[in-house]
C-alpha cells in the first residue's frame, strides 16, 4: 500500500488512506485474538509501562477462527512521506496478509507453507487472548493553501520544493492504528518514520496518546481524525 501523491498546477494531493482491498484484509482480524507480535528490529523500554519500538516491519499474528487456518499474519510497514516546505512528514501504512493453512505434517515438511520470514527476529507472546472487536485508523487530514499558512513564502522556495504556484494542498495520512479488544483495552500501533511504537492493552482514550505524540517540527499542527473504522 503506497500513498497516492498527485500534483497539478494548483493542487498537491497526499492520500494514504486504505483502499477497499486493504480494509477487507483487516476485516479478517475482527473476532480473532492476537497470539503474538513479531518484530524485525525491536527495542524494548521498560518504563512504568512496557514501551516497544520497532524499526522495520511488525507482524501481528492472529489466532484464526477457522480451524483449517493455522495462522493469520498481518505484516505492517510504516512509510513516511516527506512533503517539503512547511508540511511535516506524513504517514502511510502498508499491510500484507499471510494465511497459513493446516496440512498434514509430512506434506507441510515437503512443501512448507507460506509464513512470515525469518527476518522477524523478535517475538512477543501476546499477554491476552481477548478478541479484537474493532479497528480504528487515525490520520492527519488537512485542506490548506500554502500561502495562507506562510504568507512570506517566496517564489524561489516554491520552485525548489516543486510547488511553482501557490497550490492548494489535500493531505490524508495514517498515523495510528487502534485494535480495540472486547474488554475495552486497545493495542495501538503508532506509525513512526521507519517503524512503529507499539502499546499493548492500553486502557482509556487514545486522544491523549495522539496529542502527546504529535509531531510539530515547525509549528504546524496536524489535524488527526478517524480515517477508517472496521467492525
Amino acid at each position, binding site marked *: 500500500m503506497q500513498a497516492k501523491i498527485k500534483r497539478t498546477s494548483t493542487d498537491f494531493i497526499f492520500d494514504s488512506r486504505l483502499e477497499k482491498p486493504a480494509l477487507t484484509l483487516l476485516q479478517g482480524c475482527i473476532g480473532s485474538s492476537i*497470539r*503474538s507480535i*513479531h518484530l524485525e528490529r525491536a527495542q524494548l523500554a521498560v518504563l512504568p509501562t512496557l514501551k516497544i519500538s520497532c524499526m522495520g516491519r511488525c507482524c501481528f*499474528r492472529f*489466532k484464526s477462527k477457522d*480451524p483449517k487456518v*493455522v*495462522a493469520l499474519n498481518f505484516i505492517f510497514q510504516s512509510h513516511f512521506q516527506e512533503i517539503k516546505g512547511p508540511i511535516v512528514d506524513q504517514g502511510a501504512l502498508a499491510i500484507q496478509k499471510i494465511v*497459513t493453512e*493446516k496440512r*498434514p*505434517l*509430512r506434506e*507441510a*515438511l515437503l512443501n*512448507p507453507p507460506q*509464513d*512470515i520470514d*525469518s527476518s*522477524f527476529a523478535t*517475538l512477543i*507472546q501476546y499477554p491476552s*487472548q481477548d478478541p479484537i472487536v474493532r479497528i480504528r485508523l487515525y490520520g492527519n487530514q488537512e485542506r490548506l493553501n500554502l500561502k495562507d499558512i506562510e504568507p512570506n513564502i517566496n517564489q524561489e522556495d516554491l520552485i525548489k520544493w516543486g510547488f511553482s504556484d501557490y497550490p492548494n494542498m489535500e493531505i490524508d495520512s495514517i498515523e495510528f492504528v487502534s485494535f480495540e479488544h472486547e474488554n475495552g483495552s486497545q493495542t495501538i500501533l503508532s506509525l513512526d518514520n521507519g517503524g512503529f511504537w507499539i502499546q499493548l492493552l492500553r486502557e482509556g482514550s487514545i486522544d491523549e496518546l495522539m496529542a502527546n505524540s504529535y509531531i510539530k517540527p515547525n509549528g504546524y499542527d496536524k489535524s488527526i481524525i478517524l480515517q477508517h473504522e472496521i467492525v
Partner: protein
Amino acid sequence: MKKLLAYGGLFLLVVFFNACQKETPILETTNSGDKGLSTTTQQSGQAILFFDPNFLSNNHPHLKAAVDNRTDIDPFVAEVRDYLIAQNAQENIVDDIIELAGYPAWDRSIADLLSSNESIALVPYIKMEDESVQTILVAYRRDGLMNVKFWNRSFLSNFNIPADNVMHGVWSNCLSYFDALDEELFTGSSSNINTDDQSTVNNSVSSRNSIHYFINDNGICIKRVELSTYSYEIGVPMQECNDHIGNPGGSTSTPSSGRKFDFSVFGNWWQHTFFPTPNSGGGTSNNNPNNSTVNWNFVNDLRLDLAQSELAAYVQRLLNCQNTEASTQERFQYLVSALSSHLQGNIPGLELNLGDLSSALESFSNEQYMSAGAAVVEAVLAASNTTDYDAILNSMVDLFSTFSPCPSGSSSEGDGILEVLCQDAAIAFISSHGLNMSPADLQALIGTPSSCSNQAAFDEFALQKLFNDLNTKLDLDDNMACLMSAQGTDQLVNIANFYNAHHGDQADDCEENLSTAICNAFADTYCEEGITTLNLGEVGNSADPIWTIMKEQLWEMLKELTADFIPGGTLVLLGPELFNNLQSGDWMNAMYNAVDIVLNEADVCFPIAKVASFGAGLFVTAKQLAEFYEAFKKIKLFGDQVVSKLYHVLSTKLDDIYKNFKWVNNRVGVELKNAGDPLEFWDELEALFPDADVLSPSELAPYELAGIKINGGQVRISIKFGGNNNPDGYTLEFKYHTGYTFKVRFK
C-alpha cells in the same frame, strides 16, 4: 497397694487391740480398721494418738521403758510437734505418715542445739508391729525457719556407696542413728543416748568424739570423725586440711569442739528429697509454724524414698539370679521391661526406655542399686509428669512383692532373662515391621539369639532368619541383597506377611500355588532394575483419567496372564477391590485377588505346574505395567487432557499399550514402540487440540518439526527429529513452562 493396705489393716487391728487393753478414751475413737470407712472422727482420733507425746511409750508392745520414765519432751521437739499439728490442721497428713512410717515417739526423740540459731531433732517413727526404728523425722530449724525430712532406713540401707566415696561417711552417720535408737528403744540393756536430755546428749557425744584430717591418695582432704558407736569420713575443702594439719603430710589434729551433725553436707546432697528450699524472701524468722513458708512435701519425699528403696531391693535381687549369662545391660533391660509394663498399669501413658534411664544404668553397672533405684524413680517422674506419688510407691511395692526378679518358667533363671528380653525384642520387631505373626511364631522361627537387648542387632538377626525361612519356600536367592538392603526389608516383610496369610491351615493347594507364584513375581519385580511395583496411590478418584487407563491396561494384562488357564474364556469385570489394593500399595493382594476371581469364575484351580511360568509372566507383565504407569504419572503433570488425548492416540495405534509405552529414565523418557508413522501420530495428536496455538516456523527450536501450545501457553508439545539423544529418530516432547520436559522416543 495391697501391701500397704495389709500394713494399714494390721496396724489398725493392733491399735484396736491396744485400745481395749488400755481402756483409754482416745483409743476408743479408733474403730474397725476399714480404711474405706475413714471419717473426720477417725482422722481426728488418729491425730490425737499421733500427737500424744507418750502414746508409743505407753502402747507399743515392744518398746522399752524410758530410763527416766519422763513425760515431758524437749522444747524444740515440742516445737516440731506443734509445727506438724499446724500443718495437719491445714491438710491431713497424719494418716499418710502413720501408714507409711508409723507413730512418732516424741518422748524418745534426740534434740540438739547446734548453734545459737540452729536446732535439730531426730524423732523416731515406729509402726506398732515393728521391733526396730525404720523412719526418723529430722527437723532442722535455722533462723526460725523450720525444715523437716524423713530418713527411711530401708532407703539408706540399700544405698550402696563405695567406701572411698566422700559421701560414705555421711551415709554411715545417718544410718548409725537408727542403730543407736534401736539400742535405746528396743534392745539395749542400758541407754547410750539419753533422749530428750539435750545437755546429756551434748556431753555424751562431744566428750567422746575426735576428728582427724588427712589427705587421701586422690589428693582429697578427708575429715574423719570417730565416735564411740560409729565413725565417718567426708571430703572437705583443702583449706581445712591446711588449717589443721599445717602441711600435707598426714598428721592429725584434734579440734577443740565438733558437731554431731554436719547438715551443710546434707544440704548439698539429696537436693531433690532433702530439706525443702527455704523461702529466701525472709520474713519468716519466727517459730510459728502457721506462718512458715516451707514447702510441705516431706510426705511425698518419704513415698519416693520408699519407692526407691523397694526398687533398689528389687534391682539388687537380680544379682541373685543364678547361672545368669545375661549381661548387666541385658539384666537392666529386663528390669526396664518388667518395670515399664508394670507401671503402665498404675501410671497410664508411661513409657520408659533405656535412653531415659542412662544414669540409672550407670549406677546399676556400678552395683549402686540405691542410686539406680533413685534414678529410675526420677525417670518415672519425668516420663509421666505425675504427682501421684502413691501410685509410684505402690507400683514399686507391688513390683517387689508380686514379681520375681528372676524370670520364672525358664530352665535357668539367667536364661530366663534372655528369654524375656527376646520375647520383648520379638514383640518390638513384629510391631515395627508390621509382621503378621505372633511373638511365639517369630521366636520359634529365629530361636534365641545371643543378645536380644540390642534391638538393632536383634532386628538384623531376625530379618536374616526371616529371609532364610522364606527362601526355603520361595526362590529368593537372586534377590537376597535387594531384600536385605535398608530399603528392601520392608518388602521382605510384605512378602512374609502375604505368604503367611495364604499358607495357613485353611489354605488349599490352589491358594498356596497362586500366592507362591505371586511372591516370587513380586520379589523379582521389586528387585529387578529397581522398578517399584505398581502402586496406584497417586491416582485420584474415578474421575482421574489414569484410573480408566490403568483399568483397561490391567484388564489387558490379566487377559494375557490367564489365557493359559481359561482357553477361549472371557474375563470377568475387574472389581473395585483390585484398585483399592493397588491404591493402598498392596500389589500382591491386588494380583492375587484379581487372578483368584478370574479363576473362580472359570472354576479353575491354579496348578502347581504353572507356579514358575505364571510367576515369570506376572513379573514381566507387571513390570511393563508399572513402567507404563510411571510414564503416565509423569504425563499427568501436563494436565488431564494431555493424558486423555495422548492415551486416545495410543489406543488407536496399539493393542497392548502397556507393553509398548514404557518409562525408561529421565534422560530417555518413554520408549514408544510399534506406534506407526510418527508424523501421522503427531497429526492425530495435534488434531485433538483444536484450540492450541500452532507454533510458527520462527517459533520452533532446532530439530523441531512442528509444535503447539496449550493451556494459555503453559504447555508446549512438539515433535522433533534428530538431536543429541535421539539422532536418528523422532521424539515427542512435552514441555511445561517451568522447564519440566517429558519425552517420548519413537522406536
